[in-house]
C-alpha cells in the first residue's frame, strides 16, 4: 500500500519536543505513583495492560500448540484447562475491559472536551491501583497453581467440584470490577460536568460518545458480577448457597446473574473501539463522519439494548422457551445499531480524500473483521441455529472476531493514531503498515478455520479432539504464529520510536479534535488557556482557517 502520507511534520532539523510537558513536569517514581494527572495514569495503565496482554497472549500460544495434535501431547488435560481459563480471565478482565477506556479514553476524553483533568482524579488513580491489585492476585493465582473453572465460572462446577484457586480468582475479578466501575463513573461525571463552553452534546467527538455508552454499562452491569462472585465464594466456603441444586439452589440463577454483566461486558469491550474507528476514519478521509447523530445514538442504543439480551447465552440451558424467544428478538434489535455504524463508516469514505497510514489500515481491518464477527453473532442470537453452533468453536471464532479482530485492531489503530500526541514522536510508518497487514493476515488464518470447526461441531475447551478436526487446527495454529509476530512488532518499533521517532509536532494528522490543538506531549493542564468550542465536530474547514490564521501570525511575528 502506498504510504502516501498527509503527515505534516515540522522541520526535523529545528523541531524540538516541548521542554515542559506532562512527562517532564515532575520526575521520580513517586511523582508517577502518586500522580493525579489523567495522562500519567493513562500511561501507567498502558504499561500494565500491555504486560497482561502479553501474558494472556503467551497462554493463547500454549493453547494453540496443544491443539496442534488430536491427543493431549503437550500438556495434561487439567493443565490445558488451567491455561485456557487463565487466558480467558486475563484477556477479558485485565485486558479487553480496560484496554481502550482506561488508556486512550483516560488520556484523551478530558482533552477532547477541553477539561484540565477527569472530574475525580484521585478516584482515577485508585482505579489504577485496584487494577494492579487485581493483576497481582491473578499472578498469585497462577503461581499458586492456577484455576480451571473456565472464565464463565459455571456453577456448581466452580462452587463444589473443583479444588483449584477459585476464591483468589473471584477476588481478583471483584477488584478489577470495581476498578472499571470507578473508571466508568469518572467518565460519566466528566463528560456531563467538565465540558468547555460551547462543547454541546452534539459537538462531542464520537469517541467520547462511545466511551460514555460503555461507561453506563460498566457502572450498571459490573456490580451484579461483583455480588455474583461474592455469592460463589460464600457457597464455596460455607457449603450453602443459592446456586447448587444439592442445597436447593438453582444453577441457572448463576447463569442469569453472571450474563447480566458478562453480556453487556462485550459491549463495554467493543464500544470504545468503535469510537476509535470513528475518529480514525474521519481523520484519514478528511471528512466529517457520515451521519454523526446516527452513529452517536447507535452507541447509546447498543448500551441500552445490551442490557436486555443476556439470556441468549442460555438458549440450550433449559430456560423457558418463551423467555428464549423474547431474548432472541431483543438480540436481533441490538444487532441493528452495529450495522448502522459499519455502513456510516463506509460512507464516511465516500467523496473523502483518503490516505492509508497505519491507523487507517487497522481501521479497515476492524471494519471487515467486525462485520464478520457481528454477523456470526446473529447466527448465535437466532435460537434455532444457536442449538447447533453454541458451545462449539463457532462461538470461539465469533467472539475472537469481535474481540481480537474488532477490539484489538481498534486498540492498535488508536495507539498508533494518538502515539504522536502521547509521546510527541512519530512511529516508523512503513514497518508499522507492514505489521498491520501481518496482523490482518495472521488473524484470518487463526480464527477463520475455527468457524468451520464449529460447524463441524468441535466443542470448545477440549484438550483432545477427534482426528478429523486436525487439519483445520493446524491451519489455526500456523496463523497464530503469524499473529504473534504481528503483535510483537508494534512493541518493538513503538519503544524504538520513543527515542528515535521523528518529532511529531502538535497536529501531524491534521485532525480536528481539541486534543490536537495543544502541544504534544501536552502540558499537565492540557491547555494553556481553556479552549472555546466554536465549531462542530470534525469541521475540517474550520481547521483550514485555523492553520491559515496561525501561518499569518507567524509571518507577522517574523516580519516584526
Amino acid at each position: 500500500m502506498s504510504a502516501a502520507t498527509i503527515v505534516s511534520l515540522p522541520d526535523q532539523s529545528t523541531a524540538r519536543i516541548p521542554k515542559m510537558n506532562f512527562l517532564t513536569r515532575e520526575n521520580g517514581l513517586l511523582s508517577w505513583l502518586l500522580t493525579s494527572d489523567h495522562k500519567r495514569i493513562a500511561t501507567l495503565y498502558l504499561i500494565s495492560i500491555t504486560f497482561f496482554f502479553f501474558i494472556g497472549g503467551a497462554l493463547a500460544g500454549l493453547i494453540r500448540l496443544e491443539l496442534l495434535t488430536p491427543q493431549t501431547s503437550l500438556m495434561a488435560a487439567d493443565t490445558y484447562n488451567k491455561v485456557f481459563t487463565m487466558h480467558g480471565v486475563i484477556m477479558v478482565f485485565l485486558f479487553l475491559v480496560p484496554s481502550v477506556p482506561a488508556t486512550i479514553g483516560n488520556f484523551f476524553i478530558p482533552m477532547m472536551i477541553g477539561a484540565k483533568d477527569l472530574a475525580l482524579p484521585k478516584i482515577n488513580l485508585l482505579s489504577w491501583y485496584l487494577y494492579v491489585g487485581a493483576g497481582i492476585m491473578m499472578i498469585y493465582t497462577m503461581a499458586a497453581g492456577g484455576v480451571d473453572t473456565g472464565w464463565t465460572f459455571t456453577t456448581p462446577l466452580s462452587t463444589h467440584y473443583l479444588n483449584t484457586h477459585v476464591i483468589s480468582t473471584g477476588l481478583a475479578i471483584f477488584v478489577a470490577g470495581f476498578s472499571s466501575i470507578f473508571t466508568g463513573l469518572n467518565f460519566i461525571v466528566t463528560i456531563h460536568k467538565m465540558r468547555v463552553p460551547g462543547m454541546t452534546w452534539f459537538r462531542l467527538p464520537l469517541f467520547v460518545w462511545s466511551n460514555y455508552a460503555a461507561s453506563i454499562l460498566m457502572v450498571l452491569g459490573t456490580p451484579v458480577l461483583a455480588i455474583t462472585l461474592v455469592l460463589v465464594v460464600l457457597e464455596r466456603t460455607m457449603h450453602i448457597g443459592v446456586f447448587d441444586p444439592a442445597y436447593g439452589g438453582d444453577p441457572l440463577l448463576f447463569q442469569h446473574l453472571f450474563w447480566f454483566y458478562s453480556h453487556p461486558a462485550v459491549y463495554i469491550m467493543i464500544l470504545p473501539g468503535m469510537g476509535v474507528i470513528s475518529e480514525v476514519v474521519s481523520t484519514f478521509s478528511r471528512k466529517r463522519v457520515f451521519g454523526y447523530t446516527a452513529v452517536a445514538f447507535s452507541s447509546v442504543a447498543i448500551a441500552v439494548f445490551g442490557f436486555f439480551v443476556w439470556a441468549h447465552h442460555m438458549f440450550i440451558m433449559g430456560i423457558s422457551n418463551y423467555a428464549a424467544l423474547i431474548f432472541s428478538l431483543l438480540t436481533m434489535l441490538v444487532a441493528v445499531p452495529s450495522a448502522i455504524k459499519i455502513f456510516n463508516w463506509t460512507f464516511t469514505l465516500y467523496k473523502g480524500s483518503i490516505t492509508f497510514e497505519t491507523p487507517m489500515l487497522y481501521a479497515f481491518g476492524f471494519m471487515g473483521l467486525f462485520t464478520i464477527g457481528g454477523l456470526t453473532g446473529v447466527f448465535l442470537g437466532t435460537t434455532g441455529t444457536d442449538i447447533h453452533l453454541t458451545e462449539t468453536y463457532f462461538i470461539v471464532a465469533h467472539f475472537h472476531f469481535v474481540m481480537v479482530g474488532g477490539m484489538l485492531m481498534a486498540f492498535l489503530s488508536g495507539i498508533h493514531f494518538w502515539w504522536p500526541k502521547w509521546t510527541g514522536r512519530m512511529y516508523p510508518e512503513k514497518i508499522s503498515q507492514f505489521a498491520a497487514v501481518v496482523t490482518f493476515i495472521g488473524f484470518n488464518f487463526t480464527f477463520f478455520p475455527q468457524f468451520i470447526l464449529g460447524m463441524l461441531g468441535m466443542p470448545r475447551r477440549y484438550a483432545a479432539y477427534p482426528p478429523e478436526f486436525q487439519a483445520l487446527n493446524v491451519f489455526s495454529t500456523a496463523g497464530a504464529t503469524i499473529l504473534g509476530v504481528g503483535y510483537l512488532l508494534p512493541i518493538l518499533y513503538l519503544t524504538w520510536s520513543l527515542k528515535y521517532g521523528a518529532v511529531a509536532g502538535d497536529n501531524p494528522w491534521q485532525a480536528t479534535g481539541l486534543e490536537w490543538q495543544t502541544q504534544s506531549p501536552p502540558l499537565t493542564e492540557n491547555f494553556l488557556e481553556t479552549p472555546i468550542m466554536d465549531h462542530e465536530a470534525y469541521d475540517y474547514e474550520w481547521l483550514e482557517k485555523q492553520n491559515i490564521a496561525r501561518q499569518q501570525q507567524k509571518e507577522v511575528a517574523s516580519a516584526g
Partner: protein
Amino acid sequence: MSEQHEQEHHIVSPLTYAIVFLALLVGTALTVLASYADLGEWQIAPGLTLFWNPVVALAIATTKMMLVVLFFMHVKYSPKLTKLTVAAGFFMFLVLVGMTLADYFTRAWGRW
C-alpha cells in the same frame, strides 16, 4: 444538560425533616401492624394467586423509600440529571429482577 447548575443551593428546613421523620416512623408502625393482619389473597388464575400482605408491605416500604429519596436526599430539589439517575437506578433494578423472573415464571408453560 450539565449547564443548569443549582445556582442557589436549596436548603431544606429542619421542620420538613422532622415531618418526614415522623412519617417514616408511622410507616414502620403501619407495616408491622399490617403484617399481623391476614389481608387475604386474589385468585388471578388457577395456580396463580396474589397475596396482599407482601404487596402492602412492599408498597409501604416503597413509600418510605420515596420519602427518604425525595427529602432526606434532596432529590425533590435536585437538577433533572439527578432525578434521571435515580430513575435509571429503579429501571435497571426492575430489568434485572423482572426479566430474570420472566424466565422462571414461564418455565412451567407447556412440557419441554
